[in-house]
């Protein structure tokens, strides 16, 4: 495997504030993500972690602040732009396409690479067919990589939780993202599943050099695999730095031990 080196800042959020009605989800959050690194966002429940990801790829629109992605400064992201610019993600509670097979789910990850129009597809026209097969090959690479060949043709709704999580990862990877947002990829998994998932995340990061931003509860995992960690609590940033720095940060300790604010 190629020796990965952390590059410059690829994504940074500045003074992001987000509120639903009166409820403040995020207040004045700023942090950056460097190319090729594994960046973790941690924090107690309701700290606003998922909201943060949703702001990054445009599912939510922040009221204040700005997002700089690959040098481009934006008031807020547009979901589709995000996808086109190479931001992919998985969801906290699995958001697979239940009615479709594993293969089709992964294939959807390739949709932005498909150029043929619906008429050509309807006629199964040469180019359209060749394109379909081309993308199918790419999809199969990912499937092999994540070791889910066996279940290729299975409808995802029939899969166990752990596998579904993996399929969702596959779908995200199929888009060949620059930045991969993982929302609690290991939630509700047993130890073996977690180990597999860690392995996959790391090798994605190493082999494809994909920048990874992940939310995780399991401190052990976070500290093991991430290069830098942001800590959120009640929608505010209370810590940012290497795992060790964060581990020794008093505020963080308080937050996790639940000292009253």
């Amino acid at each position, binding site marked *: 495997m190629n020796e990965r080196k952390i590059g410059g800042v690829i994504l940074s959020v500045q003074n992001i504030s987000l509120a639903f009605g009166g409820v403040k989800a995020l207040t004045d959050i700023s942090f950056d993500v460097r190319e090729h690194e594994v960046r973790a966002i941690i924090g107690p429940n309701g700290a606003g972690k*998922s909201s943060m990801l*949703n702001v990054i790829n445009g*599912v939510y629109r922040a009221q204040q602040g700005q997002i700089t992605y690959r040098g481009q400064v934006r008031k807020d992201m547009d979901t589709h732009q995000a996808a086109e610019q190479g931001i992919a993600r998985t*969801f*906290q*509670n699995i*958001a697979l396409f239940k009615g479709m097979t594993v293969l089709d789910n992964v294939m959807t990850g390739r949709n932005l690479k498909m150029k043929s129009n619906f008429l050509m597809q309807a006629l199964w026209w040469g180019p359209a067919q060749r394109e379909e097969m081309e993308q199918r090959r790419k999809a199969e690479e990912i499937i092999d990589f994540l070791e889910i060949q066996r279940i290729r043709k299975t409808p995802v709704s029939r899969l166990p939780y752990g596998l579904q999580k993996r399929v969702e990862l596959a779908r995200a990877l199929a888009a060949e993202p620059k930045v991969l947002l993982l929302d609690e990829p290991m939630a509700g998994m047993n130890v073996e599943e977690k180990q597999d998932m860690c392995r996959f995340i790391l090798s994605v990061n190493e082999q494809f050099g994909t920048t990874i931003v992940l939310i995780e509860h399991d401190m052990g995992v976070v500290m093991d695999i991430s290069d830098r960690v942001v800590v959120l609590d009640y929608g505010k940033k209370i810590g940012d730095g290497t795992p060790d720095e964060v581990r020794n940060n008093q505020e963080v300790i308080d937050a996790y031990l639940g000292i009253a604010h």
Partner: protein
Amino acid sequence: MSSLQVFAEVLIAGLLTGIMYSLVALGFVLIYKASSVFNFAQGAMVFFAALTLVGIIELGVPFWLALLLTIGVMVLLGMGIEKFVLRPLVNQHEITLLMATIGLTFVIEGLAQLVWGTDVRRIDLGIKDIPIEFIADNTGILVSQLDLFAAVVAGALVATLAVLFSHTKVGRALRAVADDHAAALSVGIPLQRIWGIVWGVAGLVALVAGMLWGARSGVQFALVFVALKALPVLIIGGFTSVPGVIVAGLIVGASEKIAEFYVGPMVGGGIETWFPYVLAILFLLVRPEGLYGEKIIRRV
């Protein structure tokens, strides 16, 4: 007649008609609220109820007794439907349940015509469908006795239902069921008994609607079409809200009459068919969940 009087008359007529729509829509709401089934057969139930009532009366049974008997029949029908059609389909997709009620429509329509034949009958509630002199003399506006009566009945019905649902054990249980089936079950609410009751009540509502519509335009197959009139009311009012249905009925009734009366003649008339639906669309674009429907919050 001054243009103001004319408008008042159109408006009142519209509002009163609207109540008649609400009455039909009410049946849909009860069932949808409890079991999230869109009961396509509601129209057929209205037809069946009215036909059964007059049928029994024709056998020489006094009105009140016939009424009681019919109530019994409708409640049984409702509970029977729940037991034999919907229970085996519990937890199926919404659209499957819808289809089941469509099958039901054929069965009920067939049954009604098999048992009572296809002769057109009339039902006499003792209230004439003619203007009330008092109002006519003083305001020059014509208001039908029957319409007023219907409005009162509908109002009373809704009020009673509201009270029942808010102050009785069954009612609380129903609201729990409406909120979350699983949760309701987990706290030991007899889901299926509740559904049975709701279908029974829906049958009752169908009977009332059938009587009032029947008194207006005869007891006959065309009664199944009144269901169509209830649909725009439903989407505006929201499939799950009893008060919503009443308000929406008023909105639809009034607006469609005003539209037909003032705009219709300019475009060749007959716009009543689609106007309520267009209105509903415009309305939904502003409030996708309807007037009183629960707000849909979609998180990821």
